């Protein structure tokens, strides 16, 4: 598959650079030397295959993992995973993790002075169906502070990890919520150069998915690189 120069430009602008100085911890961790081109296709096998049997009951409903209901605004997140040719990605494992409604992660290194919720762990897993669709139930995560810069707060987000057709399709990203006033201040969200690519990380409120007296619906579609895409040439480090 060949890419035009314009394709490559758009592809590059859709992905963040390794070094993004406003995200302070990238400075000591981003590769400093130029990346080396791989002469041959990646040898990796097609990637791990995950069946429905690799999920536990409750993996797709983060509000049902404990004896009580978690605090917060209940949400249903749905979406479709396709490849860069528009084909659905079937059987894709999606791993999700998030803070609770107060903006606190159930993690030993999270020192934010907000309460843990005994009824919320913040971990979920789903597998896409034959049309590439997924859905899970959760609560809307809270914003949380971090020490990146003065008065730094992360906009509410859900972390997504996805497996597609192989190693090139592997993606870890974050889903944001519409109209979040913190987005313009967030160096992580703003690390993606292209504005329309950035906006695709923001889920959309979905009336059709919203359930009366139960939960608000959000839609978050994901496009994975096909496993035969050419590498991102001239990638800056």
């Amino acid at each position, binding site marked *: 598959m060949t890419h035009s120069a314009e*394709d490559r430009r758009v592809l590059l602008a*859709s*992905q*963040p650079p*390794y070094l*993004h100085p406003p*995200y302070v*911890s*990238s*400075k*000591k*961790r*981003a*590769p*400093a*030397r130029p*990346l*080396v*081109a*791989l*002469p*041959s296709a*990646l*040898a*990796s*096998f097609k*990637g*791990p295959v995950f069946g429905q049997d690799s999920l536990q009951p409750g993996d797709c409903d983060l509000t049902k993992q404990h004896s009580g209901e978690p605090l917060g605004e209940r949400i249903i997140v749905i979406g479709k995973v396709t490849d*860069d*040719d*528009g084909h659905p990605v079937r059987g894709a494992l999606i*791993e*999700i*993790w998030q803070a609770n409604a107060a903006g606190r*992660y159930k*993690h030993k*290194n*999270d020192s934010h002075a907000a309460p843990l919720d005994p009824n919320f762990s*913040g*971990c979920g*897993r789903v597998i896409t169906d034959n049309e590439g669709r997924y859905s899970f139930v959760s609560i809307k995560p809270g914003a949380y502070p971090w020490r990146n810069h003065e008065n730094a707060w992360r906009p509410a987000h859900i*972390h997504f*990890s996805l497996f597609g057709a192989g*190693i*090139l399709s*592997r993606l*870890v*990203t*974050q889903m944001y919520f519409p109209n979040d006033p913190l987005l313009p201040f967030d160096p*992580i969200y703003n690390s*993606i150069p292209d504005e329309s*690519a950035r906006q*695709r*990380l923001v889920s959309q409120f979905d009336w059709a998915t919203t359930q009366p007296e139960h939960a608000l619906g959000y839609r978050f579609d*994901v*496009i*994975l690189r096909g496993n035969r895409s050419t590498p*991102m*040439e001239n*990638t800056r480090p």
Partner: protein
Amino acid sequence: MKFIPTGSQTVGPFFSIGLDTLCQQPAMSPSPDAVLVQGTIFDGENAPIPDAVFEFWSDNEFVRAATNEDGNFFAVLKQPVNSLYFDVLIFMRGLMRPVLTRVYLGDERTFKEETSLQRVPPERRNTLCARAGETKNHFSWDVHMQGDRETVFFEF
């Protein structure tokens, strides 16, 4: 390519909540046909990185291993069938997208003919080679994100 892929974002510091289920248990001991690869990953100031996660991809296996508080990782791997190396994705707080590297088990002289090493400057090839350890199936491989010993990372 008709559609632009979704942008990558960092795994952040708390990825273990979501990624632990698929992590290999570090206490596993290698069976006779497997190897143990262990090492430490360092940042640009030579400090170990305690919040990184490695994914080893080969033609017959996928293994995920996260670093511990000292930046050490342990991965029990089956020898690849059709290649001499593992493709390795490394995710961490501070990286907006994973880096891709390769690890060869053994001395770089063994892999002189390997095409993926030919474009790597000779003086940096050793960063992709895991040293054989005390026991037969034991290799050690350190990763440096920056500095004189910066590991080779590939475009992908």
